[in-house]
C-alpha cells in the first residue's frame, strides 16, 4: 500500500528530535485523531538551517514529517511556506488516498513553525 519511499522515510526517519532553543516551533494535529506533529526550526536570515520533528502517528504521518524536514532544509521561509501537501506526498512517490490527510499535517506543521518564527521576530 505504501511506496518504497514512504517505507524508507518511515523506517529511517530523517531529522528526528528536538532543536534546543528553536527559532520556530509548530505543533499541529490532535492525539484524538491519532496524529500529532511538532516541527522545530533553526532559521538564519530567513533561511531554514535545520529542521527537526517529533511525531505521534501512523506510517504516513511519520514519513511525511521526515520528508517535510528534508524538503525545507536550506530553503527560505518564503519557499518553505509554498510547499503544499501534494508536494510532500509527491516527493514520497504518492500516498494512499486515505492517508493524504497526513501530508496536510506536514504542510500545516511547516506553516505553523514559520508563523511561530515570524511572530517571535515581530515581538523582538
Amino acid at each position, binding site marked *: 500500500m505504501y511506496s518504497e519511499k514512504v*517505507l524508507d522515510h518511515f*523506517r529511517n526517519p530523517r531529522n528526528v528530535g528536538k532543536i534546543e532553543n528553536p527559532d520556530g516551533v509548530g505543533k499541529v494535529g490532535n492525539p484524538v*485523531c*491519532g496524529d500529532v506533529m511538532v516541527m522545530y526550526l533553526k532559521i538564519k536570515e530567513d533561511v531554514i538551517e535545520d529542521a527537526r520533528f517529533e511525531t505521534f502517528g501512523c506510517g504516513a504521518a*511519520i514519513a511525511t514529517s521526515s520528508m517535510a524536514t528534508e524538503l525545507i532544509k536550506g530553503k527560505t521561509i518564503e519557499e518553505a511556506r509554498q510547499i503544499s501537501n501534494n508536494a510532500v506526498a509527491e516527493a514520497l512517490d504518492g500516498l494512499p488516498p*486515505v492517508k493524504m490527510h497526513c501530508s496536510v499535517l506536514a504542510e500545516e506543521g511547516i506553516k505553523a513553525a514559520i508563523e511561530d518564527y515570524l511572530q517571535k521576530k515581530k515581538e523582538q
Partner: protein
Amino acid sequence: MIYLDYNATTPCDKRVVEAMLPFFQEKFGNPSSLYYLGQEAKNAIEETRERIARFIGARKEEIIFTSGGTEANNLAIRGTIEALKKKGNHLITSSIEHHSVLKVFQSLEKEGFEVTYLPVNDAGQLDPDTLQKSIRPSTILISIMQANNETGVIEPIKELASLAQTKGIVFHTDAVQTMGKIPIKVKDLGVSLLSASAHKFYGPKGIGFLYLRKGTPLSPQIRGGEHERRKRAGTENVPAIVGMGKATEIAAGEMEAETKKVETLRNTLEEGLLSTIPEIEVVSQKAPRLFNTSLILVKDVEGESMLLNLDFEGIEVSSGSACTSGSLEPSHVLLACGYPHEIAHGSIRFSLGKFNTAEEINQVLEVFPKIVEKLRKISPFGKSEVH
C-alpha cells in the same frame, strides 16, 4: 515470517486443502444435477452439513451455507427483520459488534427501525441486566457476538439469550471468532441464529454458515434456485463447503489440545511484554477471553506504526481489527470499553494460532520492545525509556 493475526484469517490446514482438491476437477458436478456427478457433489455437501450440525448440536436442516461470516450476519439480521417487521421495529445489539453486524443495523436505522446499542463495561463485557432493561414489547431481534474479534472477550450468551427466549424474541449470535475455538452447543446457548466463517478456523475463505433454529422465520436475501431450502440461492461452493467440513472435523478432534498449547504461548507473550515494556496494558486481561487473543495498548505510540515496524521484522499482527485498519478511526471496540481516543490509537493485536511456536514468541519478545522504544523516541509525548 511470524504470523500472529489468526483472528483476521488463518491458513488452511493441509488436510482441508487435500479434502477440497478432488472437487475442483474431478468431482466437479453441480449439486442440483440429477446424474451421478451431481449427486456425488450433493452427497458431499450434505455430509458436511451433517458434520457441522453435529459439532454445534444442531440438526442437519438447520445449517444454511453462506459465502462467509459477513453474509451469514447480514442474512441473520435482515432475514429476521424482513420476516418479522410486522411484529415490531425495535432491535438490540451491542456497541462492540463486528462491522458486518453494526453496518446492517446502521442501515436499518436509516430505514426507520429503532436500534439500541448496548454498552459494555471497562473490560468489554455486556451485562444481562442492561439487556433486560432495554427490551421493549416491540423488540424483534437481539444480536450479540459470542466473542469479540479485537479483545477476545467472551460474552455471556447463555444468560443474554435466555432473556430473549422468555420473551419470545429471536436471538442471533456472531460466532465467527468462537467456531472451532471453543465448544458450541446451540441448545445450551439458547440462540435461534448463529453465524460462522470457515477461514477463521483453518478452513477456506468464501464460505461460512448460518445456524437457523427450526421454526425461526427467515426471509432469504439472495433469491434464485431452490438451494439451501430456499433460504439462500446460488450454485453451492462445493469444494469450500467440503473444506469447511474438514476444518470442523479437525477442530472436533484437536481443539482441546490446541487450546492448551496456544494459551500457554499467549500467556508467555503477555507476561513477557508486560515485564519489559513500561506503560502498556493488556485489554480485558481479567475477563473471560479467547485463549489466543491479546490486545495491547501502548502509550504514546500509534498502532499502525507498530504494525509496520513489526512487519519489517517479519512479524504480522493487526492494529485493532483487520477491517478497520484501512480507516482512520480508532477501534470502536476500545472506545466502547471507555478508552479515550488517544489511547485507543495505540492498540496492537496479537492473535495466535496452532502453527505458532515458542521460538516465534521469543522472537517477538526480542523485537517488539525495541520497536516501542524507537517509536516513543520519535513521539512528542512522554519520553519514558524501555527497561
